[in-house]
């Protein structure tokens, strides 16, 4: 049983990476006068045009995700009669309303799932680590900062938010002409450095202040976790003018990082009690060194579980969004968008069953891998 999930993970990753070579309407290798060419890599190659080359090797599936087979349009069943030029060009899993091959869609959907899954979880991991690694290590009672640096940080934060909110402000500064695009930021920087120096000379501002880092950041985490997920996604997506995969990745990462952050925090609270952390501190090493060299490997070890479960959740969320039609752009295909085709024709069972099974098997795989890792760690 253990083997099955890792085999299916391997198949998933393999198909995701090599989708273009498995299902494509361009041949893999051609031969013409100049020698061998590889049309898979070129955008210029057009199907159905009279190409002068001789096809040596075709991909297994002769269709790409958006290649339309007009002869077989209108949801042809996998077992139904198909109008085919060659026997190999059969639509093994049927076609949709426009005549697109379902199997090719599934294979290219794997790429999208892989892309979105990995990159959004990676982004979520980085966000989660940023929000919880240092705060949970220092806790509420150990992080002290000078009042002056605290003030400067607050001012900088304020300006960052201000300029981000009024994008136009930055643009107007940079485009007023002359050397303003150097002069104004330099002035700004100068003011801040001057402020820093003056503040650090005044006695009142050199006082050390205890900052309850952990409480502050865990409040933020709780806040994000209590937001209603789907609602936030709808709002965030409506903010973007153009649909793209990267938007989806960012939105999912924003939704998923609190889970990672909580895992990291819980693990760090445990690790920092360990004696070997104290022993390293007693050797005179800095907190930075201890966090990166000694604590982070342990923290990441158990965060892998959260990543595996998060991966499954990500794929599900992306499918949901694509099903609703607000996910990926129209020229891409994902399992969710394939599934939404089934809404047009209820009798076309192959449009619902196959993408559904793909989603189901992938999520099952990642959940059981997560379970397996968890039982290994504990």
């Amino acid at each position: 049983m253990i083997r099955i999930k890792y085999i299916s993970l391997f198949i998933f990753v393999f198909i995701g990476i090599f989708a273009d070579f498995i299902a494509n309407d361009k041949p893999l290798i051609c031969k013409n006068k100049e020698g061998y060419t590889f049309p898979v890599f070129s955008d210029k190659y057009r199907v159905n045009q009279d190409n002068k080359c001789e096809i040596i090797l075709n991909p297994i599936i002769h269709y790409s995700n958006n290649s339309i087979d007009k002869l077989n349009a209108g949801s042809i069943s996998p077992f139904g009669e198909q109008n085919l030029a060659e026997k190999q060009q059969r639509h093994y899993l049927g076609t949709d309303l426009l005549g697109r091959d379902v199997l090719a869609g599934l294979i290219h959907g794997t790429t999208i799932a892989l892309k979105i899954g990995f990159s959004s979880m990676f982004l979520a991991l980085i966000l989660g680590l940023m929000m919880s690694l240092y705060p949970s290590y220092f806790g509420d009672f150990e992080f002290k900062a000078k009042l002056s640096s605290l003030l400067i940080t607050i001012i900088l934060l304020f300006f960052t938010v201000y300029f981000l909110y009024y994008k136009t402000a930055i643009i107007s500064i940079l485009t007023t002409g002359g050397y303003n695009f150097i002069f104004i930021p330099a002035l700004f920087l100068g003011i801040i450095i001057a402020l820093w120096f003056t503040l650090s000379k005044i006695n009142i501002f050199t006082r050390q202040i205890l900052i309850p880092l952990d409480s502050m950041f865990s409040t933020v985490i709780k806040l994000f976790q209590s937001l209603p997920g789907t609602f936030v996604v709808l709002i965030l997506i409506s903010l973007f003018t153009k649909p793209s995969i990267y938007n989806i990745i960012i939105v999912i990462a924003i939704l998923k990082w609190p889970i990672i952050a909580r895992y990291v925090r819980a693990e760090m609270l445990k690790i920092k009690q360990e004696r070997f952390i104290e022993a390293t501190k007693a050797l005179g090493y800095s907190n930075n060194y201890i966090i990166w060299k000694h604590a982070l490997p342990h923290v990441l070890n158990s965060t892998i579980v959260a990543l595996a479960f998060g991966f499954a959740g990500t794929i599900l969320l992306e499918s949901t969004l694509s099903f609703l039609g607000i996910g990926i752009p129209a020229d891409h295909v994902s399992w969710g968008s394939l599934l939404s085709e089934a809404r047009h024709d209820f009798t076309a069972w192959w449009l619902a069953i196959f993408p559904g099974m793909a989603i189901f098997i992938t999520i099952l795989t990642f959940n059981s891998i997560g379970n397996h890792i968890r039982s290994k760690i504990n």
Partner: protein
Amino acid sequence: MDIGSVVYLKKVFVKNSKENIIEVINLEVELENSSREKILKKICFDIKNKSITALVGKSGSGKSLTALSILGLIKYIDGLNVRGSISFEGIEKNILEMDDKELKDYRGNIASMIFQDPFTSFDPSKSCGEQIIEVLEFNRVSATENAENFILNLFTELGIERRLFFYYPYMLSGGQLQKISILATLVSNPRLIVADEPTTNLDAISKKEVLDFLLKVKNKYGISILYISHDLEAVRYISDEIVLLEAGKIKGSYKKNVFFEQPNVQNEKLVSKRESQSDKSIIKSGNERKLLEVKNLTKTFLSRGKKIFSQNKLFRVLDKVSFEVMRGDVFGIIGESGSGKSTIARSILDLIPKDSGSVIFMGKSLDFAKANNYFYNDVQVVFQNPLSSLNPSLNVKSLLVEAIVANKRVNNSIESVNSKLKWLLSVVDLSKDVLSKKSRQLSGGEGQRVSIARALAVSPRLIVLDESISSLDKKMQYKILQLLLKLKNELNLTYIFITHDLEISRYFCNRILILQKGRVVEQGSVESVFVRPKHEYTKRLLNSILVSDS
């Protein structure tokens, strides 16, 4: 008052009672799987009537299985083949062949058991008294109306405070709760109590109290006790007969006096007087200059309220602790668990912020000493458990190299690091193949040697030994102490030795400080404290050293 008279169910005592209450004949336990490994190999021994028999052996020698078979509980463990016979005086049947109902009667009224950790054997949601009454009802012993009075009488009779009857288990200390669990076994009027390591988790004072309590129970009611332990001191104090178990075989059963006169037992004892005398003379030649001075050290922790709406309270762990450590000292800090010993260690190293007071190292206050970056090269610490104080994901070599590189006084080239690594290994008597191991693969002694090597890597002047040898067995403790003494003389080290073990501190330290609930109770040279203790608590602590009367 004899409990037998109050309690109904008087057993039919056989009048001409034989000498032995339990006779174990050819007890054999083997695993039922294909390996057929024998855990107990034809064990034969007796438990004498009205006496305390100690079953001594290392962990894994089959002590607990023997205990379980005597109580007939071994039947319920899966995957074991049991052969042999155990006969109880006055009962015809072999205990191993009894059916469930007979066993229930046997365990309820004739034999009972005390476990190692009393906190797990009590239900935390009921008061102690209720649970004892439950035992009484379960054994159909007496009417419930009188039950409370009866048990309260038993409390007074055995010298336990009556108010403990109404307390919940978490409110009591380990020692008190263990006494109550002994008392709970008494209400069913047993003739044999099997005590499975009852004092292992307790500190010195409550250990003595529990052992005294067991002796009292034995003398008062004539109950036989099978005392299972690996603690020779306790065995020497309490037992009449000793059965030695090694790897599933009986190595012999002895009278107490005979057992402790054997040469190999003597070796395991830590303090043989001649040695301690000679070693002390070396320690004594301490230079009279101050190395470390702690003044009015105070530390409070925030303890969360246990109930939902109760407020957090400040809990004072250290209360104005002051002491001085001279160059070349071995300064002992002694206290029970929870007395703030480790907090002192961590405050000295500035691993936790202190509330008030000052630590002065080599004439400089701690903040100042830390500023020049050499502080952590001068002061080092060795913690109790090597498993937790060495990072489990790194191997020994990278741990030691990390420590060597931390030394800021010297330039670290690759050659110098390698030669230092070799020197460290030779100094703590470790072979080279340790380097590639991870902390999990090390034995306790090896792990502690690696910890010591890591502390030595930065060539410190002062090493804080925070219960460094407590988790080791006696033989290894002795070896590590010898190593520490050798290192101290070779490298001119000063030790702060934090422990709860009085005997070791008497052997190892030249000045000691006794700590109770965060306050310094007494401090001075070892002789003055051990011979003429002034404070009440010190006297109690010293009394808890188990010196057998014979």
